[in-house]
């Protein structure tokens, strides 16, 4: 069994869901043009992953193997609905901007992946921790992309203007292709550093 510290390092760095498996980007890449939306979105994903991992781990001895996929999906959907209702109640503007992407957390492969790979066979608290750290790893990569996109696309961060007044925004950063390019570059940098560490070790 791995220790909490090991899990943190693995999920955030060596086995980061985005670098290593390119999983779960569907529901979140679309909102990376604004930093605020990204923070809310990734918090939602982290919450859902942690809580669903906890629940699946608590119920792991009671769920029949054959129907575990559908049970897991329902558990995830339950937490996503909670996130959705909370957003609607307290952050209606952001909820409107996120649109369908909150609901799409359900089909985020990371959550299902962590359940299959970890929560199935580990105690509840450790599973919840695994969910939180996976969420942090995910958040780190998407926030990096969001910072670059908002800074160059709108000249601001969290909606606050940072760049000088004569800065001309890069239109490409607002549109979809830039998210793909930046993710490719982030993966490139991450992998290069990792390869070097691997060669040194």
């Amino acid at each position: 069994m791995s220790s909490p510290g090991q899990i943190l390092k693995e999920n955030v760095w060596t086995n980061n869901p985005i670098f290593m498996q390119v999983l779960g980007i569907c529901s979140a890449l679309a909102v990376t043009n604004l930093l605020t939306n990204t923070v809310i979105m990734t918090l939602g994903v982290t919450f859902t992953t942690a809580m669903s991992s906890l629940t699946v781990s608590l119920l792991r001895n009671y769920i029949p193997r054959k129907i575990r996929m559908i049970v897991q999906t329902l558990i995830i959907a339950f937490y996503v609905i909670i996130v959705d209702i909370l957003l609607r109640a307290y952050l209606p503007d952001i909820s409107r901007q996120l649109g369908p992407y909150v609901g799409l957390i359900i089909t985020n492969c990371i959550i299902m992946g962590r359940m299959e790979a970890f929560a199935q066979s580990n105690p509840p608290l450790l599973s919840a921790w695994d969910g939180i750290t996976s969420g942090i790893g995910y958040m780190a990569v998407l926030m990096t992309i969001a910072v670059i996109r908002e800074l160059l696309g709108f000249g601001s961060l969290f909606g606050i203007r940072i760049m000088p007044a004569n800065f001309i925004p890069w239109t490409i950063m607002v549109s979809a292709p830039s998210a793909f390019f930046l993710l490719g570059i982030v993966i490139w940098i991450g992998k290069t550093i990792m390869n070097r560490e691997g060669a040194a070790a």
Partner: protein
Amino acid sequence: MNATPLLNPFSLFFASIFTSNILLANFLGMCSFISISKDSKSSNGLGFAVTVVLVITSAVNWAVLHYVLIPLQLEYLRYIVFIITIAATVQILEMIIDRVSQALYMSLGIFLPLITVNCAILGVSLFIDIRTYSFTQSVIFGLGSGLGWWLAIMALSAIRKKTDKAPVPAGLKGPGITMITIGFMAMAFMGFSGMLQVQ
């Protein structure tokens, strides 16, 4: 971006294939897209399966939404209901294909389980809800999105055949170069957006 919803079915159809491609503009269905696009034969099979399932589920989910959830004021349950509808549709389709044609089952059936967790399918159903499409619009949007996804995965798998052999920097191999390739494809598809756009 805030154009009024297009009512013309042809515009909606072409917009959902090209300018608002479900994958390249809305980032949906990426997971299976990246893993399957290594092989063009599987890409073709999965693209076809996604298109078929999208047309059926967008029709079914539209009906469920308008005849069950809205009259009963249970809209907040839509995520759960949509995902169950999708899972059920996929399951039934798998059984029918298995019975009707073994050849089709071999080429299509193996991809069906993958589709339940494909974000594009759920995404289309959610877009139908948010953009308040009519029944006809929903089916056209589902068909167009499926064809657009199919087109994108076929194009990418063809490009990946070349990039796999190209001398790419070590860190960029695999997912890295694939993301950048998708970025270029997205730019090309965006070129159509001067013609029409769908919100």
